[in-house]
């Protein structure tokens, strides 16, 4: 209890602390109240969300080819169920009540007083998911999770804890979305990942917010010896402002982190998206790749790699394409080496579509528009290694859905 009080105190002290990046939001403009939703045993009984709405968020309503599901609407967990042995899915509050030991993971990879958004998650009732793969467990199908906002002006506070125990494999596909008509809303999502020795976690997230939404995810990852964490993040649809800068700490020898981000900024959208990896054990490896396209919106594409010990290898790649006038892309790659024997590199490029490439495709029979869209699709076509084939297929499908609307 003492520790919890201390957390609350730290949160209170940071309640007005602006974030390091992104536009500063006044939390008083949002509402804490949303109607309670009923729990459903099966997703197919869920009336609030259609199969199509769920599909856009990456959730298969039938639950086919999924090892479990979690759905939260506004502040209520409406469904959570694991379908395979060795997997556990609970609401985070429920899990904290069930497992005393879980408190040892609580606010361990993200600081509660990082900024007013982390503080706000701690200072009011929150939900979120707890997912755990038991030691050595491997699932064929991914877990699916959806955090949905329906209530106008609602501030959704989420604290997720994901634990992959030693030698386990956990693949998560998650969509965050909101009802498109809502004029204003805020999603505050803390996610803490613990990847233990020889475990693998892939986290594929597609965001489908609305034009009036502000979004502030706060993620921290801890990867132990020979563990692997991979994040694939896609946002293509309009959102008012989005700022995130997840940090992975590689603490065990041979740990690996990979971040792939695909960002499309529509006019009026402000995306400030970064990824940070801190390599603090030998033979660790990191890769950060981002592809940013603006259709008129603003994008800051950040990346930061910090090599604290020798014998680590890391690469950072930021590429941006400005398709429409008025769009801005600010690529900010940072490399920080603290030991002599680090091998870190970066490459960044921002520009327009090369006319030479358009003409090359036109000479093969494509009209100018067809050639341009082929090049844009190619630009976004990041090769993702290590994703199970089913998940890769699913991610492509979700990207295509977004692409059709976005480009």
């Amino acid at each position, binding site marked *: 209890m003492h520790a919890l009080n201390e957390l609350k105190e730290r949160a209170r002290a940071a309640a007005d602390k602006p974030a390091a990046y992104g536009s500063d939001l006044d939390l008083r403009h949002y509402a804490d109240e949303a109607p309670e939703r009923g729990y459903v045993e099966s997703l197919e009984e869920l009336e609030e969300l259609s199969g199509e709405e769920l599909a856009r968020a990456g959730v298969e309503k039938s639950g086919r080819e999924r090892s479990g599901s979690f759905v939260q609407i506004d502040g209520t967990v409406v469904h959570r169920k694991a379908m395979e042995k060795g997997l556990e899915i609970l609401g985070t509050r429920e899990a904290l009540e069930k497992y005393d030991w879980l408190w040892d993971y609580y606010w361990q990879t993200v600081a509660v007083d990082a900024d007013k958004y982390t503080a706000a998650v701690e200072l009011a009732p929150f939900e979120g998911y707890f997912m755990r793969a038991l030691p050595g467990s491997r699932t064929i199908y991914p877990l699916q999770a959806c955090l949905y906002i329906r209530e106008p002006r609602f501030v959704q506070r989420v604290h997720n804890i994901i634990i992959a125990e030693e030698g386990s494999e956990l693949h998560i596909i998650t969509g965050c979305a909101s009802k498109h008509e809502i004029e204003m809303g805020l999603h505050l999502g803390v996610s803490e990942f613990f990847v233990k020795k020889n475990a693998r976690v892939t986290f594929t997230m597609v965001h489908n917010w609305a034009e009036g939404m502000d979004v502030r995810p706060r993620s921290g990852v801890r990867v132990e010896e020979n563990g692997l964490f991979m994040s694939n993040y896609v946002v293509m649809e309009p959102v008012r402002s989005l700022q995130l800068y997840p940090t992975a700490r590689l603490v065990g020898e041979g740990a690996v982190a990979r971040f792939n981000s695909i960002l499309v900024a529509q006019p009026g959208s402000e995306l400030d998206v970064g990824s940070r990896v801190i390599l603090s054990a030998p033979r660790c490896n990191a890769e950060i790749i981002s592809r940013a396209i603006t259709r008129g919106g603003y994008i800051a594409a950040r990346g930061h790699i910090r090599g604290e010990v020798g014998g680590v290898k890391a690469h950072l790649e930021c590429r941006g394409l400005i398709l429409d006038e008025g769009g801005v892309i600010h690529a900010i790659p940072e490399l920080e080496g603290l030991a002599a024997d680090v091998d870190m590199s970066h490459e960044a490029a921002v520009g327009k579509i090369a006319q030479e490439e358009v003409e*090359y495709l*036109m*000479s093969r*029979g494509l*009209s*100018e528009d067809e050639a341009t869209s*082929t090049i844009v699709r190619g630009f976004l076509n990041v090769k993702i290694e290590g994703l199970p084939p089913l998940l890769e297929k699913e991610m492509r499908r979700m990207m295509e859905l977004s692409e059709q609307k976005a480009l």
Partner: protein
Amino acid sequence: MYESDDDRDITLRVENLSVEVEGKEVLRGVSLGIKCGETHVLFGPNGSGKTTLLMALMGFPRYRVTSGRILFEEEDITGLPPYERARRGFGIMFQRPPTVRGVTLEQMAALCADDGVDVEALAGDMNLEEFLSRDVNHGFSGGEIKRSELLQLLAQNPRIVLLDEPESGVDMENLQLVGKAIRKLLQKDLRRRRTKCGLIITHTGYILDYVEADVGHVLCEGTVVCSGNPREQLEGIRKYGFEECARCTR
């Protein structure tokens, strides 16, 4: 010589074509005609306008036609964009094509191909199976680029085949492969009447060991200074250089 032939047989006709690139005149009144089924070669020193002629025939906007016309089967196509020409049956092999990241050679070949074209089989013929899943031209060697370009053309199966130095950078082993692909593109093994036309730029003339050409043109300073038997022209160029060609007509 073609001027005296029956004009009705001419598939691609270039009439008095002048072209400027970035404000500089590169082609000055070029005329030639390629009959149905014929292959022509273009000789000429560096900077004489050979590539410019091919690019202008394909319709790239950087190559601005200031006077003259290009006729394909009697249709004036001078103002058409490249894709309209490609759809009418023009196909070009680039000397230095750009890399298109995220677009694989397989996708590229499929874009060119009509339904029913077996891209994998063609890739097998060009010894490029392993390249199908790679981004087009990314990290390809000179010879690999030639084979990749030819693979795309084989998939496209054009009526007018424009080749810019198909043999440069190709080793002896692959030269045969390249030669064979060009023969196929130009229906050289067909005994009956061919329908394909070719215009090939060559510096070395090596490609003539694999592909017979009907007519040769020597381009100097943006003008065709000689049209005739390509073998004889090549022999002359090898012996006396291009200067003699230029002098010969004056």
